[in-house]
């Protein structure tokens, strides 16, 4: 039994909550809605009511539990250390078990589970996307032409003509390899932000890391866990455990906090009751490292390799990278080390952008209201570009920039680093000539 199979497993977390309400200070949803049902202690009270039998698995309960970004801001604030996100995820799984999965979600998750079909769908999508989306003039994105479940005001990034993993070999050799690392690309880098994905491989290669990019990897399953379909999520977790256990690598590199957290935390939760898989998942979890942390802590930043990037940037902390994987300083260290680059710390950089993966699809207006605070902070920072470490955040930030008339370019941290390396190379070549 895992916490995804029985809500009883989170009773200890529930008991820790003393209902002090400190979560109100930081919950982005509560700060918009100001209703007790939207903040952690209110949801904990509802889960307690269900466990006590005072409340059924009602639609209202499901709606309330859907109102969480799993941004972990309340976890960090909680004086008693309640892991609220675990309670939420366990409750959502329990809701699906008791009420079933929405048919549309069932279809989508079924596709994500079958990587071949998902891949085919998104590849076909990249060809036909012009039919349903019209391009936005300035931002790299498009509006939906018809309201097919997406809000018409929403800017959706274009799918790449060909996914990252099709464009790169499965093994990228380094000149003098010092270590071997697998790269878990995640969906956003594979299908949308190809340049960021290429930058990860480029940066690793330049640091003499041999990179393995398993072709059969697929969605990490975070969206599926978030929507409570733990049966599918378990299958996907096992599949990734199988795929990555076979590899002889020192590290597994991620470039998205949600993917990384799924690998180093959620797989362990999902596979807790399966001894064989749990042990393997532990080994995998211990090898997971975010690309910026890997560069700073494993490789060490070699400033002599960095060329100037003349840009004023600010940095947005992705929730799962910061509070999930504990990666907060490394991206800043990288940015601050790059000559010519001016780093401006925005206010409340660690506040959720409102994207929260698929939350912005299901609760668009609320996600945008939350994003307003981020847009204001970005505006006040007066930077030329926004840097972050997560593809879904980039998606939300792009859409939000359009909503709030802020057309700044966006980069993954590793793209700026790759650029800095490349500029230095170019400079060295020119001086050599």
């Amino acid at each position, binding site marked *: 039994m895992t916490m995804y199979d029985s809500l009883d497993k989170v009773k200890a977390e529930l008991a820790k909550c*003393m209902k002090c309400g400190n979560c109100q200070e930081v919950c982005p949803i509560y700060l918009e809605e*100001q209703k007790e049902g939207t903040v952690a202690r209110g949801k904990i009270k509802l889960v307690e009511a269900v466990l006590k039998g005072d409340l059924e698995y009602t639609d209202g309960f499901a709606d309330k539990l859907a109102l969480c970004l799993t941004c972990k801001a309340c976890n960090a604030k909680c004086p008693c250390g309640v892991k609220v996100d675990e309670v939420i995820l366990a409750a959502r799984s329990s809701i699906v078990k008791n009420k079933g999965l929405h048919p549309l979600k069932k279809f989508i998750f079924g596709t994500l589970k079958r990587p071949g079909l998902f891949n085919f769908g998104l590849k076909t999508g990249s060809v036909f996307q012009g039919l349903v989306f019209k391009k936005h003039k300035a931002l790299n994105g498009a509006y939906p032409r018809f309201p097919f479940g997406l809000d018409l005001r929403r800017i959706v990034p274009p799918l790449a003509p060909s996914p990252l993993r099709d464009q790169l070999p499965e093994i990228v050799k380094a000149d003098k390899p010092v270590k071997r690392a697998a790269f878990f690309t995640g969906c956003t880098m594979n299908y949308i932000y190809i340049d960021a994905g290429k930058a990860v491989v480029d940066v690793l290669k330049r640091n003499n890391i041999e990179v393995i990019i398993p072709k059969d990897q697929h969605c990490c399953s975070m969206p599926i866990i978030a929507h409570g379909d733990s049966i599918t999520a378990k299958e996907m977790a096992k599949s990734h455990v199988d795929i990555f256990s076979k590899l002889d690598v020192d590290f597994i590199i991620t470039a998205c906090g949600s993917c990384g957290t799924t690998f180093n935390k959620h797989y362990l939760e999902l596979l807790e009751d399966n001894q064989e898989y749990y042990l393997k998942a532990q080994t995998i979890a211990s090898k997971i490292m975010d690309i910026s942390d890997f560069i700073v802590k494993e490789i060490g930043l070699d400033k002599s390799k960095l060329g100037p990037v003349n840009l004023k940037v600010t940095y947005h902390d992705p929730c799962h990278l910061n509070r999930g994987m504990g990666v907060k300083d490394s991206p800043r260290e990288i940015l601050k080390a790059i000559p010519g680059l001016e780093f401006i710390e925005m206010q409340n950089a660690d506040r959720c952008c409102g994207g929260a993966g698929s939350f912005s699809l299901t609760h668009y207006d609320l996600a945008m209201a939350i994003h307003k605070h981020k847009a204001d902070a970005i505006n006040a920072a007066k930077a030329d570009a926004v840097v972050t470490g997560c593809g879904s955040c980039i998606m939300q930030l792009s859409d939000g920039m359009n909503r709030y008339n802020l057309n700044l370019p966006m980069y993954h941290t590793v793209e700026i680093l790759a650029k800095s390396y490349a500029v230095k190379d170019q400079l060295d070549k020119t001086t050599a000539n």
Partner: protein
Amino acid sequence: MRETLPAFVAVYTGYNIGGLYVDKNIISTLMNLLGRENVLTSKEDMITYSFDATADMPSENPDVVVTPDNKEQIVEIVKLANEKKIPIITRGSGTNLSGGTIPINKGIVLSMLKLNKILEIDAENMTARVEPGLVIQKLNDAAAPYGLIYPPDPGTVTTATMGGSVSECSGGLRGLKYGVTKDYVMGLEVIMANGDIIRTGGKTVKNVSGYDLTKLFTGAEGTLGIITQITVKLIPAPQYRRSMLAIFDNLDKAGKTIAEIISNKVIPATLEIMDNVTIRTVENYAKIGLPIDAEAVLILEVDGGIEQVVLQEFEIVKKICKENGAVDIKLAQSDAERDSIFAARRAALPALAQVKPTTVLEDATVPRSKIPEMLKALKKIAEKYNLQIGTFGHAGDGNLHPTILTDESNKEEMERVHKAVDEIFKVALELGGTLSGEHGIGIAKAKFMEWEFGKEGVAVMKKIKDALDPDSILNPGKIFGGN
């Protein structure tokens, strides 16, 4: 809906529940008045308003939760409630520690969170006028550019509202030097139970016109009226401060230190104490290097506007600690070190709360000279009832927080807990103290009121309540229990 009310509630509060109900007509009237989105009625929503931050309290779902935008709407709500005799429970952030916002008699929960504006910061007169839904910290943020502060700083300063803290008259860590909320409330605007709007007090430092209604409504826990505007006093922010942590192997020595500091004419802004149970629990929880065999630690801070004076006072405090046999003194050399000293104190409640599922937190208060006696009595009570009690609190102002670590699912132990609580209040009153230093009475301490005030004293309060709210629609069942 009324028949779902558990019998014990009626018994507990003595409230006459016959003939009261919120029907569909009332809900639709409220929706017409406030807009559908500002009227919550689902069972799920009601559950989330059935409690506040108080442990070991009964929960009860309200009938409806409304969130008005302005006072005109509140007047209409009050008139409707008055006509239909429906209880109104005014609520801010629901962070109080006396069960003050639990809708024990069901009815309408009136959420004030949308009335959250700062109406004025008057730097010349050093006052501010705010709406009740404003979070306390936001007032401090707005006053900071003027070099001013609003001193009351309850532990929930970043979540609790001004209206809630005025209604509970909350205190904080700086009570000894700066006082509590009532020392800062200068004027109020209040909606009465009949819908009248009145104004009390004002901006002037001197104001002796008529009865002091401002003080009457401050700490009234929403039982006498609904506060819609608050005028408060601000003071210049202290520019300098010095902090330290002093460790004692003996309670009496710590107690004597407290008394001597004050008798040497030094009034620290903060003078906090933690007992051995708390020290051990905090250390186990937060690993901040507290000596687990110490009988007491004192956390002290002196502050002020003149550096020399602050340093001088700090030397006096240090000397007194040493003379009274402090085994160790840790001086904060930087803001970071100060933060780590205060982190120990802030960790007290959460750390204690981790030990057992239920944390019964009291705030019995005694004259500061009686602190050692009170601490010893608490130790005896813990032994007598075989309970774990950790005590920490604001030693400088005599406000202690004996915290009983228990499990509400253990009926036998809870009986012992309730007996111990009775005895804690008895001792506090015998020592010349009071039931509540800063949390209010609510439903948690209602049954002890006669111990402190006698039948006659309580009768006077009830007469005031009856005069201002004859049908007892405003937060019924609080402070007195029965009507």
